[in-house]
Structures are given as C-alpha cells and as structure tokens.
C-alpha cells in the first residue's frame, strides 16, 4: 500500500520493473557482442579490405535508397494524407505491407517481377539490356523497397498532425498548390521528414533478406555488411562479431547524433 502510494507521484513500480526487463532484453544482447569481441585481432580484421569494401557499399547503397525513398515517398505520403482518393485505406495498407512482410518475401517478389524472366524484367533486359539482379542497383532497389514504408508512415503522420489552416491561408493569398506545398507544407513537416529519413536509412543499412534474395552476393558489388556478417558466421564467427560491431556502432552513432540534433529539438 505505502509503496504504491509513494510511487504514484513518480514512476509506478509496476511499470518500472517490466520497463527495466524490456531495456535489458534489448541492450544485453548488444553488450554481449562487445564482450565476445576478439579484441586482440580486432584492428587487423577491422581494417581488412573486405570490411572496408562491404562498409563502403553499405553506406552508399543505404544513402542512394534513402534518396529514392525521399523522392517517391514524400509525394506518396502527401497523397495518402491529403489526397481525396477512393479506397485510400486499402492504398495505405498496401503501402505498409513491406513493413510486416518478411524481407526475404520482398526479395522473392522483386526477383520474380524484375528478374530477367519477370513481367517487367524481361523487357528491361531485351529493350535496354538492363539486368537488375546481381548488381549494385539491385541492392539499392531491394533496400528502397523494404525501407520506403518507414519514411511514408513518418511523413504521413506529420502531415496529418500539421494544421491545414496555414495551407488554406496561403491558398487564399494566391499561392499556387505547388508553391503552398514547397513553402508552407514542407517546412511544417520537416521534423517528420527528418525522422522518417533517419529510420529509412537505418533500415536500408541493416537490410539483409531482400538483398541476398534479389541482388545476390558478390564482393564489391552486392555484398553489404549484413551479408558479410551472415557468411562470415559460416566459417569465422570472430570475423562475424567484428563486422556486427562495426554495423552496430555505425547505426548507434547515426541514430544518436540525428536524434539529438533534429528530432528532440523540434518536437
């Protein structure tokens, strides 16, 4: 009784305990990675050409995928939030399917459609000589497919939360729809876009299933860090731990720095 009364003013104990267990559940495995790391051979493995190549490829592909997601995803979010379309609920559900779909299923779908025997891929191949599987472009597409819903959802949420009266005011003052979008809507949802971009980039960086299924695995072209980790685990678990740590550190640094600078400051 007394404990409960005392806690009511601050954190209820009944929430604090599961919260701490939850925190430990998420953090302890990552700490275990650091504990198990082969510190003596770490530098030589860290600066090996293979690691550098995979890391570079991961960063480049995740960034390109994020650019694609921004160019296509922000307008898509706008249509979902503001467009007056029939069946918008169904559309939104379709857009978010890749969020819950196992990535490997996404990879199979991409391979069947964009592969050189697929309904789109065969024409890409015969008309333009473009074959997407087993190329860096394929990695970018696989990552964009999996990551774009994260951006769309964030931006759509921001659009729904934004007050439409500013846009209406701009319109009554004679601004065109495009001008209103650029000068009023976009700035008002900037924090949402930044948050979505960070999530999208981080998701693309960690993408594994769709990438290995659709883009295959070839060093320097399609072997991103997650693929390198998976294959290293087959023969050299220590190398896999080192690669995992690199990926973990890059992710934490990016998420932490961007969160502090953008998301917390604005919201």
């Amino acid at each position, binding site marked *: 009784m007394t404990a409960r009364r005392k806690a009511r003013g601050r954190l209820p104990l009944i929430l604090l305990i599961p919260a701490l267990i939850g925190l430990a559940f998420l953090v302890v495995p990552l700490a275990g990675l650091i504990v198990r790391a082969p510190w003596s051979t770490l530098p030589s493995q860290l600066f090996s050409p293979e690691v550098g190549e995979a890391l570079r490829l991961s960063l480049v592909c995740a960034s390109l995928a994020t650019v694609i997601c921004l160019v296509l995803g922000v307008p898509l979010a706008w249509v979902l939030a503001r467009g007056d379309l029939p069946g918008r609920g169904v559309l939104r559900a379709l857009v978010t399917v890749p969020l819950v779909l196992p990535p490997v299923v996404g990879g199979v779908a991409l*391979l*069947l459609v964009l*592969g*050189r*025997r697929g309904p789109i891929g065969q024409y890409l191949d015969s008309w333009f000589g473009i*074959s997407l*599987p*087993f190329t860096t472009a394929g990695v970018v597409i696989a990552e964009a497919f999996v990551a774009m819903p994260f951006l769309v959802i964030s931006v759509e949420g921001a659009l729904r939360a934004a007050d439409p009266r500013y846009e209406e005011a701009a319109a009554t003052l004679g601004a065109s729809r495009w001008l209103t979008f650029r000068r009023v809507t976009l700035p008002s949802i900037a924090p949402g876009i930044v948050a979505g971009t960070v999530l999208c980039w981080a998701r693309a960086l960690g993408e594994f299933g769709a990438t*290995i299924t659709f883009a*295959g*695995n*070839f*060093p320097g072209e*399609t*072997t991103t860090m997650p*693929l390198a980790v*998976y*294959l*290293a685990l*087959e*023969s*050299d678990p220590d190398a896999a731990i080192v690669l995992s740590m690199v990926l973990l550190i890059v992710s934490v640094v990016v998420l932490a720095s961007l969160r502090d600078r953008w998301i917390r400051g604005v919201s």
Partner: protein
Amino acid sequence: MPNLRSRVSLVVAALALAGCGSEAPSGDGGNTGGAVTVFAAASLTESFTKLGSEFEAAKPGTKVTFNFAGSSALAQQIDQGAPADVFASAAPANMKQVSDAGGVSGDPVTFVRNRLEIAVPKGNPAGITGLVDFANAGRKIALCDEKVPCGAAAKKVFEAAGLTAAPDTLEQDVKAALTKVRLGEVDAALVYRTDVKAAGSDVDGIAFPEADKAVNDYPIATLAKAPNATTAGAFVQFVLSERGRAVLGEAGFDTP
C-alpha cells in the same frame, strides 16, 4: 558465461535422463523405440525424409524427427547442447568440430559421397557446354560462397581445371544457387548432383570430369549425449544398410 553453460548442460542432462527413463523398461538388449532426433545436412532432406518414414514403418513405436540445415549451423547447435541423437554432416570438417568437442560416441562413418554438377535452366537456353563457360564474364553464373562446403568444392574444381571463375553472385548455400537456376536468373550454377536430381524437370544437369577432384564425404555418427542412443544406433545402421544405400543412390549420391 560459465553460469549459462552449466545451465545449458543441466537442461541437456535432464533431457538425456528423460530419454533414458522412457527407454528403460525395454532394456538395453537392442530393443528400439521412442523418439529419435536426427540433425542432417540440408542436402539430405529428400532422401532422409524417405528413410525416416521407412524406418518408422520397419520399427513400430519409433518416431524420427529431422532438423535439416547447413552442416556448420547444425554443428554449432550440437556444440551448444541441442538434444540431438544423430548427426549426418555434408562435410568432414563439421563432424570433426563436433567430435573434437567430445560430442560423438564411436567413430563417424562416411556413408555417402556427393559430387558437383553443372545445373542449367531447362533446355539450357544459354548453350552451356562445360566448366569453361564459368570463366566467361559474359555469362550469368552463380556459385556458392567459398565459406560454405559447395563453394569450397567449386574452388577445388576450378583449381583442378586451371580456370578462373567469373561468378555474378556467391550464394549462401547450394539450394539458393539452384533457385537462381530454376528461376532462369543465371545461365548456370555449380551444385551437387543430388540437387540437380531433386530439382526434377526444372533443371538440366551437365556432368564434367573435374568433379572427381572435389568429391564430398558425408559422415554420420550417433552423439555422445543422445537422449535415445539405442534407437539412434539403429537408425544409423538403417542408413548404412542395403535399403539405405539404395534410397541414397536413387537421390544421386555415390556410395563410398
């Protein structure tokens, strides 16, 4: 860490005891019965599933459960204390990993051999003729990554042939390489002969002489911590029997 390890071994010991307990009434005079868990390489999926149901039919009261996966993953699971009775590995190295850790009872026996074959999509649309096509950068080629057994075997084959392969992708296991052939996304891949057979009419196989240089041995053994050692031994004997060899032979394996 030691805490965790001792806890895992406790669980294993408990499972082992439970297994012995249920088996005790039948005595140790070779009577078989109860459940047996077989950890087997993914390439054995089709043939071992068949052998498992034949074994159950031949020895009423037995139940064979399989865990099919890559041999290295299986070896790690066994080392971590997974309650398995039998391990059938696609590579001696993975069996050695388990036996070095004291996980094997008796000596592992090589029960089949597997060799590589070129897999091409049905009808061979790219006109692949032999191993030399794998050195042609213009071809779309899938190989296994060198870190998995089929990739290591492919490496030996190319060394024997004096060729430098020009793959477009290094797949994470042999079935993934085969899938790229089935879908027609690559012109050819190097897989096991058994995989070509298992793929049926989707895929054509081309044998090549250098395959003799990279024949893969498959060892099988009962495990030291087998919860049901008697039935495990009987299953291994069944795999090594005339009937077992026949089923494995049909799947495309060579007998040693």
